[in-house]
């Protein structure tokens, strides 16, 4: 049974957000017997509520609260109020994610060491390394049922994968397969195997895809130690005279302000909302925002160097059939400055339905050139580029002068591409075209980045308090009982989809919090 906790219960751990970080942390704490309340801004939509329709699903699940954008990224021009395509619903963006579950490479935890000084980038080594993370990655993979780990078979390749695989092998790529996916290739964990529905982004209707909604939170709730409170938008975190946090103020479903007391607060609202909340929690003691003595809250916003390549062929592909992202090429993921940039990137299969293709293929474009591409939708194959982007202090989330319905300042997301990002994207577009040309593409289209799904880095982890917001366990340098549990704690972004690392960090953080609580340190 889900335990309802009293607003004045100051013994609970309060977690803001129920996605990969918050949903995992809350569940793991509950499994360890710790009283936990997750406050989730979105409503609770279950598997059977999901909609196989791109726009209707977007209306149901997406975080649509107004945001602002600035900077030279094209998203700011095409989607000025939608910097990110993420979720406002119980389960957070694990409802939307495609399942790609990759470990970081060793050098990606130590970019300053391996890449050296890159002008205009705020590279820094993580205070942790791959060796330390390996057991946690293993735990996360086991829990999530990642294919190609723990003896789980890979998913079968769909049509879109067949095209990418054939082209990749023709141009000499070696590491090409259907991915390490947190999508059941066989029934397990009381969930079915993948039915190749093709609407992974819209919430998996078969339950085969791991999400905190279907695979974590119910287990936490079953302990009687976890309460998930949906439609609760946290507005600020409060603290006492000593600088310890005491609870949070949130707007409930009816818009009324409530105050939930807490022993510990963990922030996991994704990399736009988490810094927004900390910045909005300013006080006379912390005039620049909570946990912000370094001035780093909101800075180093990263979104991965992305882009898509769509190939048009003479014969049908029907790329939208089947698992969206069960296809990967890893040959370019290495760090090899000989290509003209530091860091690396992955190619992963990707498809959009016709409605989203119209919106995203080349936003704003019109005329015969555009419509003729759409005419060939059935003959299209697609892949996504996901690579490491450079952290930059000026790429940041700030509070704007406009407020939302709760009186909370809306966030502005500023992003300028670093020249390393641009060089990497150009290289990837070229290689992507070569892949499709190798199997007879009649036309190849370079699609610009979508609104960000990988939002990272705005509460970065650092060894020294002056360099970042949180320490090696995601604990705020400035506030002992305040934690950050989402991708905003990433010091740098790596080339891999971030969810597996967020989950591994959350499991590790739960262990840390529980240990310190039991020792009376928190």
């Amino acid at each position: 049974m889900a335990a309802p906790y009293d607003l004045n219960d100051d013994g609970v751990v309060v977690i803001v957000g129920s996605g990969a970080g918050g949903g995992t942390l809350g569940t793991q704490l509950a499994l360890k017997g710790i009283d936990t309340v997750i406050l989730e801004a979105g409503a609770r939509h279950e598997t059977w509520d999901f909609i196989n329709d791109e726009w209707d699903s977007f209306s149901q699940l997406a975080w649509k609260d107004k945001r602002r954008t600035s900077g030279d990224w094209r998203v700011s021009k095409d989607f000025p109020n939608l910097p990110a395509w993420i979720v406002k619903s119980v389960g957070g963006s694990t409802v939307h994610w495609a399942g790609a579950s990759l470990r970081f490479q060793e050098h990606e935890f130590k970019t300053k060491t391996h890449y050296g000084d890159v002008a205009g980038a705020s590279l820094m080594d993580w205070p942790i390394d791959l060796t330390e993370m390996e057991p946690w990655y293993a735990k996360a993979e086991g829990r999530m049922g990642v294919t190609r780990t723990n003896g789980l078979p890979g998913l079968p390749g769909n049509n879109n994968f067949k095209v990418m695989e054939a082209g990749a092998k023709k141009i000499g790529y070696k590491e090409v397969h259907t991915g390490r996916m947190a999508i059941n290739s066989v029934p397990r964990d009381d969930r079915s195997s993948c039915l190749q529905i093709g609407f992974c982004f819209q919430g998996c209707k078969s339950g085969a895809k791991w999400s905190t909604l279907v695979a974590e939170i119910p287990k936490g709730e079953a302990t009687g130690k976890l309460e998930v409170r949906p439609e609760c938008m946290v507005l600020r975190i409060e603290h006492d005279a000593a600088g310890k946090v005491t609870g949070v103020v949130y707007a409930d479903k009816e818009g009324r302000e409530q105050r939930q007391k807490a022993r510990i607060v963990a922030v996991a609202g994704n990399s736009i909302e988490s810094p927004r909340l900390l910045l909005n929690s300013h006080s006379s003691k912390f005039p620049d925002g909570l946990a912000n003595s370094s001035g780093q809250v909101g800075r180093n916003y990263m979104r991965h160097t992305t882009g898509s390549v769509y190939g048009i062929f003479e014969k049908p592909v029907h790329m939208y059939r089947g698992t969206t992202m069960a296809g990967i090429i890893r040959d370019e993921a290495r760090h090899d400055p000989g290509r003209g940039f530091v860091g690396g990137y992955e190619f992963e299969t990707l498809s959009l339905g016709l409605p989203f293709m119209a919106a995203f293929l080349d936003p704003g474009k019109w005329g015969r050139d555009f419509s003729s591409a759409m005419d060939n939708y059935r003959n299209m194959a697609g892949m996504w580029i996901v690579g490491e982007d450079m952290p930059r202090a000026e790429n940041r989330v700030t509070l704007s002068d406009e407020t939302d319905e709760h009186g909370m300042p809306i966030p502005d997301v500023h992003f300028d591409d670093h020249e390393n990002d641009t060089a990497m994207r150009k290289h990837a577009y070229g290689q992507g075209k070569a892949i499709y040309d190798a199997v007879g593409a009649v036309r190849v289209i370079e699609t610009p980045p979508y609104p960000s799904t990988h939002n990272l880095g705005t509460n970065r982890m650092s060894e020294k308090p002056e360099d970042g917001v949180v320490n090696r366990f995601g604990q705020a340098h400035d506030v002992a009982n305040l934690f950050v549990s989402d991708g905003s704690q990433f010091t740098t972004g790596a080339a891999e989809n971030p969810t597996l690392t967020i989950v591994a960090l959350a499991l590790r953080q739960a262990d840390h919090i529980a240990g310190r609580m039991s020792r009376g340190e928190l």
Partner: protein
Amino acid sequence: MRQSTLATDRRGFLKAGAGLLAMTIMPSGLVVGDAWAQMPRSTKPETFAALVQMSRDCYPHDALKDASYAKAVEILDEAARSSEADLALLEDGVAKLNKAAGDKGGSDYASLANEADRAAILEAMAEDPFFQKVRSNLVVGLYNQKDLWPVFGYEGASADQGGYIDRGFNDLDWV
């Protein structure tokens, strides 16, 4: 795809979906048909017809009938019923199109025979709020018409049919 406008567009689109089947746009640009004639309209008939032609010129799909573009224009027309500013934007915008057509020797935009001439007129006003309104409306207003998806080879929802695991997710045999 800003959501505030999207929600409105979707409602408008769903409403506009009814009652248009009996409509035809004649070569003259006039719209005829019983169901069509009975619908309330804010834009002048010639304006509406010009907007239909303009919509086709924005996203020309030879396989689509004018009725599909008209369904999208209906969203704009409906919004203009309660907004004088929206109505003025459409009427004034079409007047600009027609003036530009006159400069090319035509009587009005919709009757300019050469697609390239019409495209050139649109290109010249691509930054105009009127053009952006008509074009952006089509992204959802045209491509989210479910009855058109088969024309493009898109099959839509699949969970209700058990996904594609037994329906061709890996049926490609040409690579």
